[in-house]
């Protein structure tokens, strides 16, 4: 009797898992504009000059093409900061969309190494790619 109940429970769990995977793999990903915001805090330049190797941005940023992922960097510092092709004045933000999947290297004065890599992944169109995308999103949101 106990064994039968256990089998039923396992079957239910497996069924639920399959339904979840089916949803994650087959349901199209629909998003509005997804701005990935990164802020350069006030005092970053001063802290660096004082010898503090403050890490304010990650080494790599992951975006996905076709899902309206847009990089948004906001300079809250008191001095201009260079990011990639431009200089951001204090209080200014730079919004950069990507339409091609590739790995991009940018000069970034707010970054300890002076460089930032942005990995732009292709649009997730296969079930497996959608599952991976949703798992990554869930993990990122969970981390916050």
């Amino acid at each position, binding site marked *: 009797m106990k064994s039968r109940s256990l089998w039923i429970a396992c079957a239910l769990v497996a069924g639920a898992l399959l339904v979840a995977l089916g949803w994650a793999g087959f349901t199209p990903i629909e998003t509005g504009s997804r701005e990935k915001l990164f802020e350069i805090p006030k005092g970053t330049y001063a802290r660096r000059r004082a010898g503090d190797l403050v890490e304010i941005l990650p080494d790599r940023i992951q975006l996905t093409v076709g899902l309206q992922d847009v990089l948004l960097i906001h300079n809250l510092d008191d001095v201009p900061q260079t990011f990639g*092709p431009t200089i951001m004045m204090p209080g200014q933000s730079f919004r950069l969309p990507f339409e091609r999947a590739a790995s991009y290297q940018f000069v970034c004065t707010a970054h300890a190494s002076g460089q930032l890599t942005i990995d732009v992944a292709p649009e997730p169109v296969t079930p497996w790619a959608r599952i991976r995308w949703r798992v990554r999103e869930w993990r990122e949101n969970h981390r916050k």
Partner: protein
Amino acid sequence: MIVNFVRLIVSLLLGIGVAAAAPPSLSPPDDLFKAGTLSPAMPAPELSLAGSDGKPLTLQRFHGKVVLLAFGFSNCGEVCPITLATLAGARKKLGAEAADVQVTYVTVDPERDDAAQMKKFLGSFDPTFVGGVGTRAQLEVAYKNYGISISKKTNADGSYTIGHSSSIYMIDRFGRLRAVMPYGHPVDDFVHDLKILLGT
């Protein structure tokens, strides 16, 4: 091995229905730039150079027009010809509206590029393009203000080539730096963004 097996099982369970799954076909709204945009828009750093057309080259001179500003040199073998051909193509595609678009190309090689050289080089792409030349000191101000990085590489025979920032700065009719288009975008992306800046 295990990962592949799991993938296989999941794919089989899901019926490998790639074709059946509708793709997330969302495209960006038209009012969004293809280029990177700066917000709030601030006045573009002024230029104080000599123009290849014999007149002083300042941004003030082009107020009322949309200015596309880029940096390069006439002996450039790869990046500059592609950039200039793209900008010429964008102007051509804009038709009559191109009258309100001014391309300015500032040299990163003042030792070899004078006004006549830049005029000849730019004229082969579009005779309306205006080059910016000057002394090293004058040009350094522009490089600093726009964050232009330049690296000179000398070859064994004494000749040299120059690596340089290759983005295109998009300045609106009011002299504000609105957007920066990274190198490599096609003509249609420029046309798209120029139409926004032109308000058409």
